[in-house]
């Protein structure tokens, strides 16, 4: 004992183990499997290849990818990743560490989670944040369950139809298997004001799926009057400049951390965040790191309020989540510490300028109309196409652009981040202008 060598079992190890349990061969371990289910043929596995060959094979696969200029958003945003981030997060202390079971021995891990929580609280304006969730949509689903847990016998959650489709789909799945009555509507205020629901909570987007910055004036008061909690789904990057969930009176804020410098990466891994008012912290799922002092009076970090967690009260816990998306939370923490409030503001200003320029240029082509004229947007917007959408998308693809995502209602959306240059925007507009659509 005491050695941690990574050796596979030897023939001798296997022989001794089989002898000990009184079995003749490894195949005998499967004797309970009915004969007709046992595969008898030869496995169609390719012959072993050298490292060189494997590299070449994967490179050929990778070369099939086309690098497009991203003018799409829909919840995943092509923001710049400062090059220092992967260097820090790939340090072995961070990269190879699994969730620490003897938590307090890992002060470094607890420290950065504490920093992440602090930054999420700064962005949302709320009091308490957890150590992170799997992604934005599952964080929204956890918030839905939290509404029901906080209001005890109430069971209806109203979700705005303006939430992203993947968020709504995840809410539907969780609602179905938790027995929650999920009501989806564009008319959130009206649905709540009717007062006929056993309202546990309301989930609205800070910025909706068309990129429009929503106004939630009076909503929090109304929801509270009806006995529910208000949840806001937010883009954390945009929170640097738009009104925060706390300012709107929300009880819980959730969203996806991807916009905080995580590359698109073909869809993941991303990270969810979740914060709430102190009043509800005992129903907040997941881990929470707290600050304390050690025996010698030094600043130290601990896991706190663990009575909420499922390893203590499985059937009473708000959620069965007992882990977090720690490495990606670290990624966002490093990003935010590099950017600072000024950097975050600058990113948003560049997004705003670029997206409004593209918006005006696209309208000027005469191939779109503006269904949301006068509504404020930040980096993403929706237009009504007056041309064939399939042809439009193909023309953009052929020219190396990814944009004009079609929504279920037949609009097309575009997004401009700080990475898109004036030249790139002009070339995209030129393609739209000149293509026979």
């Amino acid at each position: 004992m005491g050695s941690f060598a990574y050796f596979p079992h030897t023939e001798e190890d296997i022989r001794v183990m089989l002898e000990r349990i009184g079995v003749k061969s490894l195949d005998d371990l499967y004797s309970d499997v009915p004969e007709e289910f046992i595969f008898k043929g030869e496995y169609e596995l390719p012959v072993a290849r050298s490292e060189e060959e494997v590299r070449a094979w994967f490179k050929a696969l990778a070369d099939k990818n086309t690098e497009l200029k991203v003018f799409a958003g829909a919840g995943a945003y092509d923001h710049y990743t400062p090059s220092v981030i992967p260097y820090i997060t790939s340090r072995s202390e961070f990269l190879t560490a699994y969730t620490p079971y003897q938590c307090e021995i890992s002060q470094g891990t607890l420290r950065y989670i504490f920093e992440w929580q602090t930054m999420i609280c700064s962005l949302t304006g709320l009091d308490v944040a957890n150590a992170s969730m799997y992604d934005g949509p599952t964080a929204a689903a956890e918030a839905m369950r939290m509404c029901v847990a906080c209001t005890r016998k109430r069971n209806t959650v109203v979700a705005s139809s303006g939430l992203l489709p993947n968020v709504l789909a995840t809410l539907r799945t969780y609602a179905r298997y938790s027995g929650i009555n999920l009501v989806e509507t564009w008319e959130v205020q009206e649905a709540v004001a009717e007062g006929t629901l056993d309202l546990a909570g309301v989930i609205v987007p800070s910025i909706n799926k068309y990129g429009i910055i929503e106004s939630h004036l009076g909503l929090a008061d109304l929801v509270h009057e009806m006995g529910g909690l208000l949840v806001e789904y937010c883009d954390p990057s945009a929170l640097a400049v738009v009104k925060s969930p706390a300012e709107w009176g929300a009880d819980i804020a959730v969203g996806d951390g991807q916009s905080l410098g995580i590359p698109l990466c073909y869809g993941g891994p991303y990270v969810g965040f979740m914060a709430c008012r102190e009043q509800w912290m005992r129903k907040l799922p997941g881990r929470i790191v707290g600050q304390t002092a050690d025996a010698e009076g030094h600043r130290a970090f601990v896991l706190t309020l663990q009575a909420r967690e499922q390893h203590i009260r499985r059937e009473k816990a708000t959620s069965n989540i007992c882990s977090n998306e720690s490495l990606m939370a670290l990624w966002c923490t490093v990003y935010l510490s590099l950017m600072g409030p000024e950097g975050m503001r600058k990113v948003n200003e560049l997004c705003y300028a670029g997206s409004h320029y593209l918006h005006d240029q696209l309208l000027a082509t005469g191939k779109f109309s503006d269904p949301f004229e006068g509504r404020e947007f930040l980096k993403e917007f929706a237009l009504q196409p007056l041309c064939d959408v399939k042809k439009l998308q193909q023309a953009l693809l052929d020219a190396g652009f990814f944009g004009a995502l079609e929504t279920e209602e037949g609009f097309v959306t575009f997004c401009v981040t700080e990475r898109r240059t004036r030249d790139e925007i002009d070339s995209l507009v030129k393609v739209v202008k000149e293509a026979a659509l």
Partner: protein
Amino acid sequence: MSKIIEGLLYSESHEWVKVEDGIAVIGVSDYAQAEMGDITYVDLPSEGDEVQAGEEFGALESVKASSELYSPVSGTVVEVNSELEAAPEKVNEDAYAAWIIKVRMSDEAELDALMDAAAYSAIAK
């Protein structure tokens, strides 16, 4: 040896009841608070909530455990001891002074199922 007070009624889940004019004043026994250790949070119901005998109405959290509170009687919560929100340690200091909820009973016959001090002292040790 934990303290048990004569004249109160006790449940098997270590709650005590004092009856005052059809109102059941409910707390946890000295034995329960000692078993829990330093209590850090009392999860209280709301006034007006309905409780059922034998069913959960809240929870105690301590530095080492979390434990549900079960109502010894059925009825309506008429008052909760909101002092415990900010000062849960009062349960440790004097479990019989730190009442948790007051319930207007819907069926006083349920009291018959509870133990007196002598009977409770047999299980609380």
